[in-house]
């Protein structure tokens, strides 16, 4: 017969066995070292920044742990200090970083915000004639910044010669090659589109690499101020125009999903984003039917194409794909195309946000002069 003590014994045995199982499994795991170190050095919550899918965790003694767009953790080590245990060599970056190779326009624009572009940028993946950022053009002219080849044909000899201490890219496939070259590779894109908050705070993600947290905070404050202004002004709006952002290509229909920063911004500016229910990556593919249904009563269309890539007029746009002429913005609404320098203007995010708000509600921004988008005429001149 089991008495009370025996019941306790059964219970204790059960709990002990469960714990033993867990502990046993844990001790056999070589992988727990990194976790233990991370936990030992855990920061106070105030020193942790979640920036969309990126994160920055300030540890003691100037060490920083960051998580990139591929969910990989890097340890930023102040120069002269030993690295903490548990991080592979390819994930240890000495700070401040002195030289960088970068793929993305937005990443490079953020280097400009941080005031380090002239000092650190040594390699890019677009030729000189595609650049409008003066520092990059000058750097390429002087030979300080090298053209590494396009994203799918990087010249790794040149890359090695330029000797970057770190590379920033969206292309996961170069990670093993760069790691073989001893260059830590930071993924700066995420599988899900950046929300407005992440877009604005991305500067805080790159800041600790260069010790430029103050500059990042100032920039964020500036953009947040403009956003506040947009929200306050939009509160006066009586109409909520329907806005769509996307394009139809030969076989594919691509749009910005509702979770992307542009979708959120349109909502904040009291517009009605027609792809609000679409969730996923930036430039996400949707069905033609969904695009056309959304465009039936939309008033404003933002295209991906620039005037250089075919968006010269509504008529020209309709010619690229006859189905597109069915959407309202092409015959009774407005169509805006980004100007070629738009994609390299990430450092002017505040101006871009303001301009989009001014396009959504032109009545609230009288006399606003556009810098980043152009309204397409009905026909080519």
């Amino acid at each position, binding site marked *: 017969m089991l008495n009370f003590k025996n019941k306790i014994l059964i219970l204790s045995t059960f709990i002990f066995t469960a714990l033993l199982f867990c502990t046993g499994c844990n001790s056999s795991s070589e992988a727990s070292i*990194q976790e233990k170190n991370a936990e030992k050095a855990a920061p106070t919550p105030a020193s942790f920044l979640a920036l969309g899918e990126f994160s920055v965790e300030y540890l003691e003694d100037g060490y920083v742990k960051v998580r990139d767009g591929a969910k990989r953790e890097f340890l930023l080590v102040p120069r002269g200090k030993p690295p903490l245990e548990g991080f592979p060599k390819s994930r240890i970056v000495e700070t401040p970083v002195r030289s960088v190779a970068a793929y993305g326009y937005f990443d490079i624009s953020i280097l400009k915000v941080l005031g380090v572009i002239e000092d650190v940028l040594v390699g890019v993946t677009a030729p000189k004639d595609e650049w409008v950022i003066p520092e990059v053009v000058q750097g390429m002219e002087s030979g300080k910044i090298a053209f590494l080849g396009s994203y799918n044909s990087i010249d790794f000899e040149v890359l090695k010669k330029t000797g970057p201490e770190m590379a920033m890219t969206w292309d996961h496939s170069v990670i093993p*090659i760069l790691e073989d070259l001893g260059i830590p590779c930071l*993924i700066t894109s995420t599988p899900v589109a950046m929300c407005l908050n992440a877009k604005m705070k991305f500067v805080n993600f790159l800041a600790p690499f260069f010790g430029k947290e103050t500059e990042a905070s100032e920039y964020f404050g500036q953009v947040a101020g403009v956003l506040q202004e947009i929200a306050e002004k939009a509160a006066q709006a009586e109409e909520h125009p329907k806005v769509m952002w996307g394009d139809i290509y030969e076989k594919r229909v691509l749009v910005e999903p509702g979770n992307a920063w542009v979708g959120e911004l349109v909502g904040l500016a009291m517009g009605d984003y027609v792809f609000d229910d679409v969730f996923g990556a930036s430039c996400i593919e949707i069905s033609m039917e969904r695009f056309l249904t959304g465009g039936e009563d939309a008033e404003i269309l933002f295209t991906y194409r620039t005037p250089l890539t075919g968006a010269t007029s509504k008529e020209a746009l309709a010619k690229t794909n006859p189905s597109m002429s069915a959407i309202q913005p092409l015959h009774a609404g407005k169509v805006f195309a980004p100007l070629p320098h738009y994609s390299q203007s990430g450092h002017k995010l505040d101006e871009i946000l303001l301009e989009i708000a001014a396009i959504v509600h032109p009545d609230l921004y009288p006399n606003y002069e556009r810098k980043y988008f152009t309204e397409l005429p009905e026909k080519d001149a």
Partner: protein
Amino acid sequence: MDALIKKIWHALASVRLTFVCMTCLCVCAGIGYFLIRSQVHVFKPLQDLSLISWAKTWGLTHISVTWWFFLLLALLALLCLNTLVCTTDRVNAIWRNRKRLPSRTSLVLRLSPHIMHYSLIIILAGYLTSYIFANTVTSLILLPDRPTRVENTSITITLTGLQTRTYQGKRMAPFDGRAINATASLLFEDSKGRTKTAQAGINRPARFQGLSVHMAEFAPRSEGGMVRRKYAGLTVRQDPGIPIYYAGMALFVLGLIFYVFSITPWGERHMRGSYA
């Protein structure tokens, strides 16, 4: 001290506690549904961070949207204790009266619901073990024929082939030539030279020495279009919780089989005549 333990034991054995716990769990999970939807990105790192690391960073930083999760864990723990105590009490009662039962079969059949209860606790313990102790390597990128070491292990994986199946149906023009499935052929090797070839696909992990290897991404994804280097992106998990919840599930199935027998006329005949 004994009196205090007895008091706690009786409190934990209360059916009222079960009811309160279950109600609170439903409310908590309901609130959680809306809070997760409001900020999905806060919870996504739980897929690859340990529960403790997540709690110290994402969890505490966003406490306004994560509080329900911590409460849920506490309620689950309480429910587990409640189930454990209630079940142990019942098992104890059956065991005490085993000699009054007509046969051993009757004893086993009477224990069947309690086996399932214990199993559920084991399954939950397995999940907790996973959340706390699993190690996940995200974005392990493999290029063809380049052995790549899995972080914090001595195991290397080589991509020996990447087979993509493209859409050829012709009914949906946008999908023409687009990859709709992919399988990576992998060669595993440990420090002792032991090797294994296996295939990992979407929703079809490969396993080697306690590692489960899941295909997370690959390129190229279409014929033509954006030119991409061939690669496979893997997520590798070393999860000590798996054997625990497999054991729990096996035990649950066993309990369920006994229980199904117990409610058949055959089972009822075997149990009849035993203690009430």
